[in-house]
């Protein structure tokens, strides 16, 4: 029995099964808090603990899944390309907003991280937390962070953004559809975008555009700052 639990096929099986359950629960409850990825991660961790399967054994199959991360990152160029036409009209406002948002993200995380006295490793793991997961994992690796912590922070950020967005934008008096979409996509990546799509077509498209733009801008700014020696 132990040998079966240690095979890569078993790791693949529990990952797929956990993801199916995550999607099912999310669809049934329609609650952003029950994010399919978060549920799947918790279910797999639960199975590993209950059946006393070492993380190394799970990793054999897990590495097979992670293999798809690089092509999945490269392919993000496709939605960015498909959304790029919506950039034409207000490109100064959109790019200006995204750059300001990315700077705010990096600075606020850095300042709070320093104030809390986080280790450089943990701080580097949190820097990419507002961007889409494949780019975030890469950036975390490059900055010397812990990609697992980055994934968790990205999911929490997405849930917070998706849940708070409608009320927050209303309180701030942000009525412009482009501004709403870009704000949601820049702060809460793909998870926020699911909410933006509910608000309207323009909001959804803009949020989708912001995922790719904010990801690239954050990677570039963070790379420059790390070269300067900020983290």
């Amino acid at each position, binding site marked *: 029995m132990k040998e079966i639990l240690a095979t890569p096929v078993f790791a693949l099986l529990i990952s797929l099964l956990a993801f199916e359950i995550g999607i099912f629960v999310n669809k049934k409850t329609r609650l952003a808090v029950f994010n399919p990825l978060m549920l799947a991660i918790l279910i797999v961790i639960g199975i590993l603990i209950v059946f006393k399967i070492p993380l190394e054994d799970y990793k054999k199959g897990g590495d097979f*899944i992670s293999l798809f991360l690089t092509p999945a990152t490269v392919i993000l160029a496709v939605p960015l390309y498909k959304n790029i036409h919506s950039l034409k009209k207000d490109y100064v406002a959109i790019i200006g907003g995204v750059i300001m948002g990315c700077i705010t993200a990096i600075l606020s995380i850095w300042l709070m991280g320093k104030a809390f006295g986080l280790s450089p490793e943990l701080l580097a793991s949190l820097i990419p937390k507002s961007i889409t997961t494949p780019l975030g994992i890469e950036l975390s690796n490059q900055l010397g962070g812990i990609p697992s912590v980055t994934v968790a922070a990205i999911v929490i950020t997405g849930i917070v953004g998706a849940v708070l967005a409608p009320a927050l934008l209303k309180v701030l008096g942000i009525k412009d559809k482009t*501004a709403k979409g870009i704000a949601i996509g820049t702060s809460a990546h793909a998870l926020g975008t699911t909410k933006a799509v509910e608000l309207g077509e323009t909001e959804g498209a803009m949020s989708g555009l912001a995922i790719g733009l904010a990801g690239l801008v954050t990677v570039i700014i963070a790379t420059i700052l790390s070269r300067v020696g900020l983290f």
Partner: protein
Amino acid sequence: MKLLRQFLIVLIICVIGEVLNKVVHVPLPGSIIGMILLFVCLITGVIKVKMIEEISCFLLDHLAFFFIPSGVGLLAYAGILKKNLVPIMVICFVSTILVMIVTGLTVQLIKGRKAK
């Protein structure tokens, strides 16, 4: 074969990205160089969306699934996480709200100025 042929195109771009990162020392992760390369190829028409449509749907539709192993890796960091749970949660909440405020107001401000 179609899906695999399309996958080949994507993998070639991945490898070029890795080469630019490791051999030419472009200071960005290989996969992100690859993403920029593919974007440029799409804009210039060197690669048509049609040529990679199916593989891009496959990868994008299942995107979240590919992150599960990275997330499960948290198990090895349970100690660090438990000790820093409050700072991590505070940072996630506060910075997300700040980014949304700054981005939304900036876009609305620049757009409003242009309209006048």
